[in-house]
């Protein structure tokens, strides 16, 4: 037991990787799902344990050395309140959505490919968990590619329903690869300047470099700035921050339902995490925001993301795509939070990572049920479903209220902290944008809600409520998203810890 506990940081990544490999070989018929389910459940248990361990530490960090090689020679994993939270998000959502996936995936993916599907599923989760936990900038790139490559394929597996999944996947491959390459180039520049790949080590070695810039003989000034610029753009692509969001709507729309839910609730969250890590831990706020004013660029982009994303969401007729554009707006909230770089802002970011994962995940699962029962997710498919699928549609509506940020839903908590952060910095215009964003969210959510409850169906299809294996995960996510809006002590506590941790390491 002690051995497992000591090696938790490694096990949390290695387990899904190894089982994923096994799944592709032996996971035929029903077995693949069982293997994925077991692994993600174990992952959830491990990440809970890890979060507890981290919060118990005085300095709030757990370090782990791969193969006991000391950093910067070996790969070091480092867990602090921020990535412990993100680990929890990924593994929680991973487990719940896997629970849901069995029937949904079986109806959307050919039976002969199920073993590959679940293998890729596990690889994707491996990558996401790895990006989150690693303390090594290059290792982060490797894991980014593991998650991205498996995601491209998972998206393309929606082709049997709609062949546009293939073009969506290709589009995603191209942009995703550009993003990953940019990140890699950035790492290379930093390696050039510092000769190190370990995040904490680079941060330390950057200090003398920064110090030299004010003097007669600045060293590596252009190298470091270029490196950061490449990383920032690459990660913005991964995060789908406006205007680099082009890959996201179609990928979310045409992927199999479970994949959309997993992507929407975890992939962009991990992208946001990596961006936060690069700005706050690797480069330092003093450099990224103080010297380069990246915060201004981020505020502009995220403000535009909120307005444009919501506006485009209003115009969609496919509800899955509507949710995808809504995600672009919600990513704007997350980016805006950390761009403000004060305690409430980072708290808002981290809370919203968590809340939005639950809310949007739950809504995509509800839509997956519509796909499973009705066979489409266009607005016209949802007409009058309020009577046919009362529980599913109730969950969807509750999630929608969370997106709007109605009081006593988790979305309200995020917005409360975010607007407070804007006002503390005196950015009244950003506060106004956030609030206007809520009103736009009301418009796009209400279009769907009206259709669900007041739309008239011509074809009286006889649809029944979803099977329990799909309903329960949906209700877990939506229920949690409501719960954390009524009692936010858990989310505000861990997000506050993460914010304190990040602001303390400010150089």
């Amino acid at each position, binding site marked *: 037991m002690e051995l497992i506990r000591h090696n938790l940081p490694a096990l949390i990544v290695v387990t899904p990787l190894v089982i994923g490999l096994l799944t592709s070989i032996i996971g035929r018929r029903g077995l693949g799902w069982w293997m994925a389910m077991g692994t993600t459940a174990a992952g959830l248990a491990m990440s809970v344990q890890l979060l507890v361990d981290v919060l118990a530490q005085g300095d709030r960090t757990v370090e782990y050395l791969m193969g006991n090689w000391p950093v910067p020679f070996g790969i070091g994993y480092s867990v602090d309140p921020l990535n412990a939270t993100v680990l929890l998000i990924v593994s929680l959502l991973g487990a719940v959505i896997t629970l849901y996936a069995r029937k949904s995936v079986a109806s959307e993916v050919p039976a002969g490919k199920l073993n590959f599907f679940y293998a890729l599923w596990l690889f994707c989760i491996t990558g996401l968990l790895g990006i989150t936990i690693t303390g090594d900038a290059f290792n982060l790139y490797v894991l980014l590619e593991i998650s991205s490559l498996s995601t491209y394929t998972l998206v393309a597996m929606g082709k049997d329903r709609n062949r546009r999944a293939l073009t969506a996947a290709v589009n995603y491959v191209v942009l995703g690869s550009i993003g990953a390459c940019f990140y890699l180039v950035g790492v290379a520049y930093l390696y050039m300047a510092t000769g190190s790949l370990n995040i904490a080590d680079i941060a330390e070695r950057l200090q003398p470099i920064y110090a030299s810039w004010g003097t007669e003989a600045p060293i590596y000034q252009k190298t470091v700035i270029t490196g950061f610029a490449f990383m920032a753009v690459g990660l913005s692509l991964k995060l789908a921050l406006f205007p680099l969001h082009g890959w996201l709507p179609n990928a979310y729309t045409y992927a199999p339902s479970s994949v959309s839910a997993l992507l929407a609730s975890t992939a962009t969250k991990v992208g946001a995490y990596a961006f936060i890590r690069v700005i706050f831990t690797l480069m330092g706020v003093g450099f990224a925001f103080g010297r380069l004013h990246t915060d201004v660029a981020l505020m502009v982009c995220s403000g535009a993301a909120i307005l444009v994303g919501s506006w485009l969401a209003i115009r969609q007729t496919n509800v899955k795509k509507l949710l995808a554009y809504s995600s672009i707006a919600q990513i704007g909230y997350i980016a805006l939070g950390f761009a403000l770089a004060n305690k409430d802002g980072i708290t808002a970011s981290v809370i919203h990572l968590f809340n939005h994962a639950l809310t949007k995940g739950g809504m995509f699962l509800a839509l997956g049920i519509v796909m499973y029962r009705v066979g489409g997710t266009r607005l016209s498919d949802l007409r009058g479903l309020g009577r046919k699928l009362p529980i599913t549609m109730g969950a969807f509506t509750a999630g929608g209220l969370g997106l709007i*940020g109605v*009081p*006593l839903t988790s979305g309200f908590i995020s917005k409360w902290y975010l*607007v407070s952060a804007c006002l503390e910095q005196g950015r009244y215009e950003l506060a106004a944008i956030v609030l206007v964003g809520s009103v736009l969210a*009301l418009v796009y959510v*209400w279009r769907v809600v009206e259709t669900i409850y007041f739309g008239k169906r011509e074809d009286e299809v006889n649809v029944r409520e979803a099977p329990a294996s799909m309903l329960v995960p949906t209700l877990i996510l939506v229920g949690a998203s409501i719960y954390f809006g*009524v009692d936010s002590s858990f989310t505000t506590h861990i997000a506050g810890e993460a914010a304190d941790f990040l602001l303390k390491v400010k150089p």
Partner: protein
Amino acid sequence: MITPEQSAMLALGVPVIGFVLVAMSGRVPNLRETFTLLTALVTFACVAGLYPAVMRGEEVRFALLEVMPGVPLSFRVEPLGMVYALVATLLWIPNSLYSIGYMRANHEKNQTRFYACYPLAIASAVGIAFADNIFTMFVFYETLTLSTFPLVTHKGTTDAMRSGRVYLGILLTTSVCFQLFAVLWIYVLSMGDAPAVESINFTVGGVFRDGLASNRIDPGIVGLLFFLYIYGIGKAALMPVHRWLPAAMVAPTPVSAFLHAVAVVKAGVFCVIKVTVYVFGVGTMQLYGLGNWLLYMAGATIIVASLIAAFQDNLKKRLAYSTISQLSYVVMATALLTPLSIMAATFHIVAHAFGKITLFFAAGSVYTAAHKTQVSQLDGIGRRMPATMAAFTIGALSMIGVPPAVGFISKWYLIRGVMERGELPGTHLDEIFVLVVIAASTLLNASYFLPIIYRAFFKPLSDEDQKHPHGEAPMPIVYALCFTAGLTLLFFFWNKPATDLAEMVRRAVS
């Protein structure tokens, strides 16, 4: 015996239990309606049970849960909230009775949804009434909007949906963009070591006093916050954010009568009084000359809404514009910023509620018995529906503000408030404006209510109507409207509870 705290908690909790019971008993209409009536009675009993404690000046406060660190859902029972809570829960009883008659006689669909939304709205109303901080008030303000939306769109027609969008759109946009902005701004100002704002709790005398005195906050900002708050409370229907109220008339009449003449709109003006007295502080606003614009805006709303009302042929629309005008009486009285005018504002919450619910009840009664919706169709109807039209007359007299209806009393206090302000030094343009508005609006009210009464009682029935005989509406409807008309008369002669509470508010202000 239960303590006042428990009684207040029950006032919040009983409607929620009622909601569950009503929702579960949808298959047995008689049981469902019994639950509705029982919930209404018990809720009122819980609120009324607090009256002695409030009169004794006891501190009744409790917190439900801490939503965010330092931001709890907390409640405190004070006289002003007590007035609103009493009116809302008292009038729910006749309204439940009325709903039974109306919904059954008109064969409305989805009655379970209809009855289930009411208790949620009442719970929200009680939450607003007893809120102890601006966050709690905002939360219940929003739940009130959401829980009444299904009632507005009850019919599910295209028209109902369009009106529902206007309703939700205006109420949520104003509350999120303005009220929430103000709430968060005040919250942010209340943090730190030397905060500019004392707290987010409602405080006698306002929360800005010290901050303004020590120059930690600019009076201009306080004025801006006041503006955000006034227009963030769209439920007060101050022009130009009044459009949702006529739109809401698409709902079944019990909804218009109770929610859009009492619970929802009174929540709006109640919030206006509450934030003026307990957040901004009457003294502070007077000292720094804030909010004088509101006097003129409210005055303009009174006149313009009355003018529009005079040209409406649809009876419910006419009543809706009359409500807009009457709500601005409360706002105008508040903006006068004297203890007596605040008392007048508080009292008018009661006076207008009794009169207007009677008028709507009568309009719904006419619709149920005679299927008429337009004023021009009402010739001679008073002979066939004497009780309904007598009640209507009493309600109309109350709106005009003449004895023996309770509307006269609030006008009396209002004019005394103007006089009180007149004793302050300075030019008296404001006071003259208010007196002109009161006079003009009284005339306008008379001009659009008296013709209805004249038509009903003195004009002969048309030939077409002769062929379609009908009598009074079903008994539950007649009982309900006689009850509220009786209250309108009674409170002219005996209004001790309302005056006592309003008097306590006055003392808190001065």
